[in-house]
Structures are given as C-alpha cells and as structure tokens.
C-alpha cells in the first residue's frame, strides 16, 4: 500500500473505471485541460481525450439534463459539479428526472449516473460555496448518497458508484483533497450500505459522516485518555443506510452521538438519530444526541465560521456528559 491524497484516489478510481467501461465519460466545467479547480481530474483528458472528458459551458441544469439523457441511452456519465452548493441549480434534473425515471417507467428505464460534488465549510468561501447539502438528496427516493471520509473510502466508493445502475451522488469533503491515506495498489470496491466500524468501544457510539469521521476519531482518542471507550462508526453511504451495524453498536454502548456537517435541523443527524431511537429505544441510557452544523448560512468571517461546525472538543465534551448521566438538553 502507498499513501495517496483523496484527490489522487478519486482520479484513480475514475481512470480505472473509464478504462474498464468505454461507455463512461466525464462531463462538467473545466474538467478537461484544467482538471477542475481542485485539480482532481488532472491528466484524464490526456488519457481519454476530449470526447470522454467533456468541458461544458457554465450551465449546470443543462449538462445535468444531458447526462440524464445520456444515462438513459446506454452511457454511464460521471457528472462533475464544482461546488455542492450548485446542487440547488440541478435539483429538477436530479430529483424529478434522474431519481424517478426507473420507478415511473415500471423499471424499464434506468439512469446509471454518478454526480460527484463536495461539501464542507471552514474554507472561508462564504455562504454559497460552503454548504453540506447531502440530506436534501437523501430525502428523494431513487437516489443513492455516498459520503467518503478518506482517500481510501473515496476510491472504493467512487468505483462502486460508477458501476451502480442508479443515480448516485458522492459528496467529497473539499478540505480533504490534499489529505493522504493508505490506499491499496490492487483494485478494490467498497460496497454501498456497509458501515465501517473505525474504532471499537463500549461506552458510547460516535457516528460521524464525511468530514466528521475524523472529528469523531479525534474525540474518541481524547476520551480514551480519560477512560471512556468510544466506538466510532462511519456509515459511508446514508442511502442505503446500514442500520444494522449502527443499531448493533448502540445496543451495546447504550449511548450515541450523531455528527454531521450539514445543518442540524431537518438534516442527516435527524434521520439517523430517529432510527436509533425507534429501534434501539429500550437499550438507550440517554437520548441519542445530534451534532450538526449550526442552522445559519455559513458566515465568511473566520471568527464566526469555525464555530458553526462540530469539533472534536465539542463531541468529547458531550460524550463525557452523556456518559456521566448528565442531561444535555433541559428535559
């Protein structure tokens, strides 16, 4: 195994799958020569040519619609959406068209399409370039949603996404593009719907998604030094969601915190917490705690932005209280 960046891992995954399947192609803004602003796709146009690495005008609804049509007719497009915030522009094509074509046609049509985009604040990019909007997409039946938490995950999940016969939305964490992890040289795929137990523990379960997996791990490390044993789980995909693994953990630890970088209200933490409460209620010693991003647009000022997102200290602090039987919300 060698260490590579998340950026490189995504690049490799796409290159391998494009070699494997000639019906795949990439489409988006500045994906070819520029290799995207984050340089994630550098080199692909040199290998696959401009026929399969297609630069578009700044027309997100348009190229998303084109990708849906291509996917309905034998191609397997990988759509590059430069910032997750632009998903608002393509919701109709994604949610009214791509997500529903299979169902509305009684299974006759299908849309094998990957939408790769990103999430994450604290980059000083302000309210329209910092959102984590995966919960919106997860609400729409017909879409699958993957949230890689490292270079390793990004590679394995991307390859699975490209082979999936359905529309899959992958949100990469922009802050992680330059972060390295061990990634096997040999081919591997990570199946959807199988959570990853990153660290075993007995006192509390910390469920983190995407960027928040590291936060959960750092909190667990801190807690360990204080004698609290935290289990850390990365669901990897929130649709499909590996309820079984999460429930098993929570039934063991009796306590849980769900940590996610999307806005807390009506977000991912609500769904996961609800399922745990519903199905592990009688095993819980304390309510499942949610820690999402604050319910405010992401502020530009560094003095404000950093406090909108959950931190390892905040998680550790809450975990400590839960384990000590303190109530976090006035009940």
């Amino acid at each position: 195994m060698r260490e590579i960046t998340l950026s490189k891992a995504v690049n490799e995954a796409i290159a391998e799958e494009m070699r494997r399947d000639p019906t795949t192609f990439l489409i988006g803004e500045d994906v070819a020569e520029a290799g995207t602003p984050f340089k994630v796709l550098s080199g692909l146009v040199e290998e696959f040519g401009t026929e399969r690495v297609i630069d578009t005008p700044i027309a997100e609804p348009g190229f998303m619609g084109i990708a849906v049509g291509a996917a309905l007719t034998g191609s397997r497009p990988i759509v590059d959406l430069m910032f997750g915030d632009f998903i608002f522009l393509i919701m109709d094509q994604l949610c009214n068209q791509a997500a529903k074509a299979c169902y509305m046609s009684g299974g006759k049509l299908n849309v094998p399409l990957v939408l790769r985009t990103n999430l994450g604040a604290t980059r000083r990019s302000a309210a329209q370039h910092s959102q984590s909007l995966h919960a919106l997409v997860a609400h729409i039946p017909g879409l699958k949603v993957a949230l890689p938490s490292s270079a390793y995950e990004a590679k394995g999940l991307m390859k699975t996404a490209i082979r999936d016969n359905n529309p899959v939305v992958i949100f990469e964490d922009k802050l992680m593009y330059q972060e390295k992890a061990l990634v096997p040289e040999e081919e591997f795929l990570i199946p959807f719907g199988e959570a990853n137990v990153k660290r075993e523990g007995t006192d509390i379960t910390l469920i983190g998604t995407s960027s928040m997996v590291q936060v959960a791990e750092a909190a667990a490390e801190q807690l360990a030094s204080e004698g609290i044993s935290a289990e850390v789980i990365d669901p990897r995909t929130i649709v499909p969601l590996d309820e079984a693994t999460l429930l098993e953990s929570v039934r063991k630890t009796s306590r849980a915190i769900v940590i996610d970088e999307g806005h807390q209200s009506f977000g991912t933490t609500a769904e996961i917490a609800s399922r745990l409460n519903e199905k592990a209620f009688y095993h819980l010693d304390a309510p499942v705690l949610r820690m999402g991003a604050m319910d405010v647009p992401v502020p530009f000022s560094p003095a404000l932005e950093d406090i909108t997102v959950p931190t390892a200290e905040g998680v550790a602090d809450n975990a400590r209280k839960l384990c000590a039987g303190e109530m976090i919300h006035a009940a």
Partner: protein
Amino acid sequence: MAKKTNTEDYLRMYRQMVRIRAFEDNANQLYLSAKMPGLTHMYSGQEAVAVGICDALEATDKITSTHRGHGHCVAKGAEFKQMFCELLGKEEGYCRGKGGSMHIADQENGNLGANAIVGGSMGIATGAALSAKLAKTGDVAVCFFGDGATAQGLWYEVMNMAALWHLPVIYACENNGYSEYTRTDEIAAGSLTARAEAFGIEAHKVDGQDVLAVNELTERLIARARKGEGPFFLELATYRYHGHHVGDINREYYRSKDEESEWKENRDPILNFGVWLTGEGIVSEEELAEIRAGIRADAEAAVAYALEAAYPDVSEVDMHVYAPNDAA
C-alpha cells in the same frame, strides 16, 4: 403538399394520424365517464406533427415527449392496449401503471418518455444525442415541446451545448398558440426561430397541419443530422382542439369558439390529408373510411381490454425505486 414515393408510405401516415385521433377520443370519453384516474392532455389537432416527424425516424432513434404526449407515443410505434392500460393504472401498461398519461415511456420504440415538467426533457433528448454521437450509432434524437416550454432556461443551456458539439438532435416546438390559458404572444417576446439561430442553429418554420410538409422537411434534416450537421430547430404551427386538459371545458375567456372551428373545419390535418390522397387518386374515400372504422374498432377493443385488466399488486409499490445491480 410534397410527395412520398409510394402509397404505403402515405397510408401509414394516414393510419397513424387516425390512430392518434381515435386514441384521444377514447381517452376523453374515459375521462368524461369518470373511468380514468386523474386528468390528461389531448393531442387531437396536432397529429400531423407527431406523425410527420416520427415517420422520418427509425425505431432506434429517440424521442422525448411531453404532458401532451399520447400522439408522440402512438406515432413512435406504441400499441393501444398497453397505452390504455397505462392511462388506467393497470399492470399491463407500458410502465406497469406507475407512470400514467404524463409519464408513458416506450423505450423499445425509442420513446424515452413523456414528462410532466414543462421543458424537463430538453436535456434528456440532447443527452440521447450525445450518447449517439459518442457510441457512433448514427441515431438521432427529437425533442418535442410546446411553445410555452420555450420560456424555460434549460432550452438555451442545452441548445448552446448541442450547437458547440454538433449533436444529432432536433428541437421540435409544437406552437399550438397557447400555454395553458395564455396566448403565446403574451408570454414569448421576439421570435422563436431567432432564439435558436442566435446559437448558430439552423431554424425552420413549417405548417404543422401538413403531414407531408413536416415529413419531408424532417427527413432532410434527419439525414443531415446523422452526418453531423445538426442540431436543428423546427417551429411547427398547430392547434389543440380540446382544452388544455380534459377538464378545461369553459375556455371562451381565453379563446373563441370561432377560432376553434376555423382550425377544426379548415385546417384539420387528417381531413385535409384525406382530401389530398383521394384527390391525387392514391386511395378512395371508401378505403379511407374503412381504415378509420378499423382503427376505431381497435381502439374500442383496447379500451374494453384495459378496463378489465388487473391493477398491479400492492407489493409492486416499492419495486423499481432502484434498478438492480448485477451480482458482483
């Protein structure tokens, strides 16, 4: 009218137009007799557009259709039985009853589906053309939409890309003079053909009531599109006989009865084509009457079948949300 080469070509188009009209009359009747769930949008009056265009296509060519989509579906090769079953939400429908009138798709004949989002299929048709170009299949895609849909920004986005990439797609705008309850000139500034031309796209206006004119122009453009000379834009002047949907009965506040009868009496695509066919001596009025009667009988039989057909089992409700993946 321009000429086709042989009688069978003419009769095929005549038959298809009559089939559409018969389908719609029966669908309207199902609504009026409260046997159809929901509402539907009648294509009657616009038959020459769907038939003139689809007759120029191969089965592997793709079309995308609209909320007013029965005509496109029939013209692209669909059968009455599965169509009526779909309209009634029955298991034998093209979409197992899950789509209904506004989502009929018939992918075996290249119909990628009706769409209940006005303009929603403009990207899809363009993407089908991209697939064809990448896979070098030689197929073309035709995107049907109404005059009202030209207000959707999506069209300009995809026209730009289709033009830049020379995609084999034809944007076919059925200008029936209205979008819902509003006249086209109240909601469309400037000129529709100029909008396409501004992107460097060749644009044509054609009488959408003249099936031969539509067909002849489409054949030429399709041939050119297959050679990479596309995209093209067509504005087809036409008229819908019924209300915006089957429930839109009192419509004098937005259009006059005189206007309606003018189109129905003097510009009916089926009547006029029939007159031409008999006038040219290609076929007799008796033969045409026989064709019409046969089709009417087929349609009624299909309706009767569909009314008796089974609904999907409730267990189907959560099937088809996702397509299966091959075992790894």
